[in-house]
């Protein structure tokens, strides 16, 4: 299982802050994993958002493995102004 976290407006759009998804395979590319997430949460917009795997920013082509934590995050807005 992969722990999936949604933040900010993405949690509002999916109606979910945290869930677990079955991988079915030992590893998937981030892009393929996101397709899986979108099938489960059709309300998830395609962009813009950032993905982190185990608290590190995931570059295109990065892998998601069983047991990982995947965070799906809208553009950041800390700091204000």
């Amino acid at each position, binding site marked *: 299982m992969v722990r999936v976290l949604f*933040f900010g407006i993405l949690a509002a759009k999916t109606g979910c802050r945290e869930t677990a998804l079955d991988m079915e395979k030992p590893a998937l590319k981030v892009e393929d994993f996101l397709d899986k997430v979108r099938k489960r949460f059709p309300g998830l917009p395609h962009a813009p958002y950032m993905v982190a795997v185990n608290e*590190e920013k995931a570059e295109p082509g990065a892998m998601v493995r069983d047991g990982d934590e995947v965070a799906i995050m809208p553009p950041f807005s*800390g*700091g204000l102004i």
Partner: protein
Amino acid sequence: MTMNDKPVRIQSADFSIEEEINILKNSSLKTGAVVTFLGVARDFSEGKEIKSIAFEQYGKMALKAMERLREDALKRFDVIDIRMVHRVTAISPGGQIILIAVSSEHRDEAFKACRWCIDTLKKTVPLWKKEITPEGESWVTPHP
């Protein structure tokens, strides 16, 4: 060691600007300048009255990203030290949100580093702001 000894913090509690500046001043007699950036909650945003703002963070990743930002800035600029505190609780207008304080021998590098830190923080630290208005709540979409 108290919590305030840590140079990078994400916390609910308010912070003391004077305390953070004093830590920088007292840590090195080479210090000739301390430049600060203070982010404050406004009561109006894009035509809407704001009752308060709230922040959500991605726990450890947000703190790690802020610590990395400080390390990067210390390498990039000729400064002595940097302290950063970001609050993540509900904050009413006039309340303090974020402090970045930079000490250096000469003012120019401290100004540059402080500006770079706040601009980079907004792009690299997983924090999200929600505005609470009399009509309801809305997540803020950052401007470029």
